[in-house]
């Protein structure tokens, strides 16, 4: 056999071998079997307990599991680097942290699940990715007092919020006078923001949520489209929220339409002339949360972590400028604010359509006014 045909047949053999395994590897992992796993038995048993009895039982079981935990998270490094050591200190558990952006956390979790590899005990990431993981049947039920303290409209099946991302307009105080500070979302369509407003290219969840809000207000579709078109008119499109805030601080942008409030706060704390107070309401809120995996090898330790994260962990979240899911005193952090939750189910079902639509909308922003 010549080298050419040898190589060709090698490639063909590889393809055949792989395609012999079934459909495309990325057509989604086989959903977990319906049989309850050993981990789920633990979740059910301890889920019914409360108070000290629950804590003591978890500590006892965690010790049997070897006091180790594997956590996959998209929590920022500077916060994860505080949260994890505090948890380790409080419980004596040794935590292995895998940190990446939410899309990568999702990919890794799905890939490992499809290969039957038990990588993570707890996955903690953005709403969309958590909802996908839960919808694939990879997470077990997590019940308990702490979960019951979370704002009811965010208590999802298969995962529980640990913190919120809040979208609100942010502005550069040197470039935006008091009379130009936006009061409502509709304000952003004002031509006075032409040339200084910045939109982010992948904020379709924000767009979808706001669109639904305007519809509920009784606006016609054409009017809503015009509103967004006016917003985009003369705007500068950016990629990435963190870069956007950096350029807002530097004065490249005057107003960012939908900034993450914790990024704005961080820039403000470093002395940058940026602000988002008072919030333009209703604020758009998207949950980030955690789920206990059905394949977990350390289910009690996983549960111990979620319990701790929703109690003591929330104070750390709050201290670092993020919005906790439960205030340390047990109250609702979103109380007193008009909140538009991002509809996670809608995102999964219609996300691609909204993404394509938003893409069309922001393309209207390509023409900057002549200088």
């Amino acid at each position, binding site marked *: 056999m010549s080298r050419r045909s040898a190589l060709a047949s090698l490639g063909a053999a590889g393809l055949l071998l792989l395609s012999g395994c079934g459909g495309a590897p990325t057509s989604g992992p086989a959903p977990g079997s319906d049989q309850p796993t050993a981990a789920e038995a633990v979740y059910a048993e301890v889920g019914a307990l409360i108070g000290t009895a629950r804590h003591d039982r978890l500590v006892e079981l965690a010790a049997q599991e070897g006091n180790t935990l594997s956590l996959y998270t998209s929590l920022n490094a*500077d916060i994860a680097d505080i949260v994890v050591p505090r948890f380790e200190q409080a419980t004596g558990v040794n935590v292995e942290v895998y940190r990446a952006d939410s899309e990568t956390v999702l990919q890794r979790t799905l890939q490992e699940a499809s290969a039957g590899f038990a990588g993570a005990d707890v996955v903690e990431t953005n709403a969309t990715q958590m909802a996908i993981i839960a919808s694939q049947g990879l997470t077990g039920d997590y019940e308990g007092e702490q979960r019951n303290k979370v704002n009811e409209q965010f208590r999802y099946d298969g995962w529980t919020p640990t913190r919120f991302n809040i979208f609100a307009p942010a502005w550069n105080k040197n470039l935006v006078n008091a009379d130009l500070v936006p009061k409502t979302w509709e304000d952003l369509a004002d031509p006075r923001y032409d040339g200084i407003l910045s939109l982010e290219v992948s904020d379709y969840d924000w767009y979808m949520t706001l669109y639904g809000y305007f519809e509920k207000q009784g606006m016609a579709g054409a009017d809503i489209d015009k509103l967004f078109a006016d917003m985009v008119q003369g705007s500068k499109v*950016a990629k990435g929220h963190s870069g956007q805030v950096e350029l807002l601080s*530097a004065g490249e942008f005057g107003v960012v339409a939908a900034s993450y409030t914790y990024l704005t706060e961080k820039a403000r704390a470093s002395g940058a002339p940026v602000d988002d107070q008072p919030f333009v309401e209703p604020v758009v809120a998207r949950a980030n949360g955690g789920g206990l995996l059905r394949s977990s090898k350390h289910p009690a330790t996983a549960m111990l972590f979620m319990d701790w994260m929703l109690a003591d962990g929330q104070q750390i979240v709050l201290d670092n400028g993020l919005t906790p899911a439960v205030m340390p005193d047990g109250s609702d952090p979103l109380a007193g604010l008009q909140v538009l939750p991002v509809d996670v189910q809608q995102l999964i079902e219609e996300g691609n359509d909204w993404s394509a639509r938003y893409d069309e909308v922001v393309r209207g922003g390509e023409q900057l006014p002549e200088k």
Partner: protein
Amino acid sequence: MATLAAPRVLARARERLLRPRTLVAAATIAIVGYLALIPLVYLLWTTFSDAGGFSLGGFARAYGDARIGELIGNSLWFAAGSALLSLAVGTALAYFNVRTDVPFKALFFAASIIPLIIPGILYTISWIFLASPTIGLLNNLIEPIVGPGTFDVFTVWGMIWVEGLHLSPIAFLFMVAAFGSTDPSLEESSLMSGATRLQTFRRVTLPLVRPALLSAALIMLVRSLESFEVPALLGLQNGIYVFTSRIYQVLRSFPVDFAGAGALAVGLLALAALGVWLSNVLSRGHGGGTITGKGFRPRPIDLGRWKPVVGGGILLYFFVTVLAPLLVLLYTALLPYYRPPSAEAFASMNLDNFVAVFNLPSVPTALKNSLLLGGGAATIVMALMAVAAWVVVRSGIPGRQILDHIAFSPLVIPGLVLGVGIAFVYLRSPLPIYGTLLILLIAYCTRYLPYGMRYAVSGMQTISTELEESAQVSGAGWGATFRRVLLPLIAPALLAGWVYIFVVSFRELSSSILLYTPGNEVLSISIWELYANARFGELSALGVIMVLILAVLVAVAYKVGARVGLKS
């Protein structure tokens, strides 16, 4: 008779198969094939199948978009422009550096490496701070003379400028190796026969380095087609969308449209295959080698009265591509947050960001792992490619060009798809590779095969066969010929490839972030984390530190490399 002849034929075949050169070649083909085929097969499989079996749905989704023509148009314009700019700049710099008595030669070293080291995100943001019509420092500088907003980095020309300058070190590395191994006596003869310098450059010098020129052009064209940071940060602001924005978009949907992303990558693959084929065909016409048996010593050309002009040009280039972005980085690193220079800004300067970087818990481990992986991947790839280049250029083995194409394919496979492909295989492999540093090494070796291949092939193509033949006539075996004749002659190209892989592997993110495990962090992940947390001050500080560390290491590599190279 036939019964007697058969064993003899078999014995001869066995002897030929067991020859060291055949064994080494076979082993190399096997390893390269294994590394490159895993992601390629995975890519093709996901592209051409869905849950139900064979499907072309990915192509319909990827190319069915009404704007795809515009995207491809923008991409090609941007890629061709950047490739041309970097090629022109890189070739000119390399020529002046190797062939003339231009002053400030020490600056070349910095100019050739530093833009490579600065992470793409930082390099691009530095340019926003320099040349944005609103806040650009260069614009502020010349505003009193020519009015506001002279430079606008948010245009295709701005994108070409930034990408071209960021890529020019690749061209420089290619061309330095090539100019270093061509015989200047040919140019001297041309000059003596009455040709002008320009004519000589165009008709003698350039054809001599054609293989390297083509290799560099090919790599840079594909690289710019794939570039992400520059189009994302500079293009979007004015609605300039390119091919990669589409790949990004399909990878972001759920379920992640791997078939759509794969279909786009297959388009690039076809283009790249055409490029490899074209580059080899054109190099073949090159006449087989400029390094011949005759001894030569590159003698620098006296620039005469042009010396100050060229020297000034070099200084300007150094300022624009290296010093200005580096100063912006340093300036940003010293501030609590970026703001245009003012008395207040200078008063607020401190070293907090540098202190913070050193206090990041993952940075020491990440630095160690990145050095290990960068050095490991660069060494493994260049060692493999030295042999693979021989197989492709010299061996005469039928079908050897396929090896070239296969080794080039990882260049066009999106990093995430490459990572997922590798994870897919090693999650199911009985070998305990998943979750170790080894899986990252495999990923890096795969990703940088194409660069190694182009560097090594272009080096091999400049060597005349007569040197090998005379070694063999003198009784040297294949091993000795390879080690003592070929290897020293292609050493400049191998070293250039090594330096390139070593440096850029520090920036590899998309497959690293999917495949690393706690304890195996690499530096690019620390960079990403700082970026994601909007900690630009610390990010810039880390950038400055990386430039210092890598520049020293690369200088050492050149010193060590010079001992085994041609110049010894």
